């Protein structure tokens, strides 16, 4: 299968103020692919995600989306290019209701998509049940579902997920993986996700990048991903 390169990251350096974290990240993700990023705590996975969406500046190197460099444009404009970002630690809007949280996600598309709210409620029934609850009082796992539902509201063509399984009960982890795969099949959405949960990686990923000390140090393809032990080994590089 030959698909176009969607996201091309070349020699990416970045981090926080004076302190570099990313030290030359190279990888490419094709249109319609589901790619995982794995690695130990503190190697820079979340930093990579934040740099991709534009919450952190590119210090050197470049990020290209469908051939266009993103580095100079601000986060909200990147989102408007159809990138949906689910941060680690959920970061829901605590004093807004569940529905209001979802509505904010529409900004990715810049418009309200008819029927989409119902679709999201279909994926995550708890959100319908708690539509008027303040998001900050939801349980951890409920918030995670909300955070995922929120980006789906904006019909993104690329989804960045930072540890989506964190705090989620096992059967819903499976559901989320299934939803992502299904969405990917139906709409061709590209998914890049950071994960530690081997089951989820195996259930979702078509390709997997291994990160260490601010660099991509290995790439696992479909075959390699069928091997649990191998993933586990890479997770603890």
């Amino acid at each position, binding site marked *: 299968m030959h698909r176009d390169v969607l996201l091309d990251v070349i020699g990416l350096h970045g981090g926080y103020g004076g302190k570099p974290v990313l030290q030359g990240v190279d990888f490419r993700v094709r249109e319609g692919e589901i790619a995982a990023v794995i690695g130990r705590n503190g190697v820079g996975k979340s930093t990579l995600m934040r740099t991709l*969406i*534009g*919450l952190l500046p590119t210090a050197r190197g470049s990020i290209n989306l469908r051939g266009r460099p993103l580095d100079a444009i*601000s*986060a*909200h404009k990147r*989102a*408007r290019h159809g990138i*949906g*970002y689910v*941060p680690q630690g959920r*970061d*829901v*809007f*605590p*004093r*807004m209701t569940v529905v*209001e*949280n979802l*509505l*904010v*996600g529409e*900004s*990715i*598309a*810049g418009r309200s998509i008819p029927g989409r709210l119902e679709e999201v409620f279909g994926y995550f029934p708890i959100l319908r049940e708690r539509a008027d*609850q*303040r998001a900050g*009082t939801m349980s951890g796992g409920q918030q995670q579902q909300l955070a995922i539902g*929120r*980006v789906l509201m*904006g019909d993104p063509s690329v989804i960045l997920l930072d540890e989506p399984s964190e705090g989620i009960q096992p059967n819903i982890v499976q559901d989320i993986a299934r939803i992502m795969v299904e969405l990917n099949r139906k709409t061709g959405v590209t998914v890049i996700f950071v994960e530690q949960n081997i089951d989820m990686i195996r259930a979702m990923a078509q390709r997997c990048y291994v990160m260490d000390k601010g660099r991509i140090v290995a790439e696992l393809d479909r075959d390699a991903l069928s091997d649990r032990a191998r993933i586990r080994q890479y997770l603890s590089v």
Partner: protein
Amino acid sequence: MEFLYAIFSFLYQFGDAFAFLVLSACGLAVIFGMMGVINLAHGEFILCGAYVSTSVAHMGLPLPVAIAAGSLAAGIAGMIVELVVIRPLYKRPLDTIVATWGISMIVTQGTLIVLGTTMAGSGTPLGSFVVGDYSYSTYRVVLMGMALATLAALWLMFTKTRFGILARATIQVPHVAEALGVNTNLVYSLTFGLGAALAGLAGGLYAPTMTLVPTMGAAFMVEAFVTVVVGGADIFLGTAPAAVVLGLIKATLTSWQGQLAGQIGMLIAVIIVIRILPRGISGKILKERA
């Protein structure tokens, strides 16, 4: 009949205190209550609204137009201040105390130097009416109506419009709102501008009834801050009941024991209310409701 007159007079006094608290507080409720910016220059936005609306009125334009112009001018001034001074400070809101204190000094003294020590008033319109033994200013009834209308408009705007939702999202978790496609800089600018415009509105509305001097904003500050804080984190749930409670206490004590009692009584009420509701009135409402 006497009894009805007495009731009317009490309602009028309460409404008067309520309107002053609400109109003083609304702009601050947006800028401080929502955005977390401790705006010690709130009074100077009020000053801006008052001066501009009075100048426009002196040009012969009708008062409503003049008031709108004052509010607009304050709003634009607010957006400029936001861009230049406030924007770098969202991550350290406490520093806005110093910055806005500085702005307040600059504006107050700048006004004195440029426009002199005072500006002639434009006069209170609409005359007076008599109920029982007392005659009342009609315009102050308009102020009460404006206070209610402002509260309603704000509530609708922030809970029912898309802008309102995005504004609240931006203020609660800015980086996530940004990452979800919200132009947070624009939202900040508009929100701060709105708060300033509301302050300007208060200035425009009260200008015909007050002395116009560069320090006039100070007259609104204490009332504005205590109302917003007693209201608590959720300004839409909090500001109105806070103004009711404080207005009632102030009006009752003032009529019973005079202005000093009204002032001190209101401040003591603030202390007691916060002691009973350590997260303000809206904190209490939210807890019950959640």
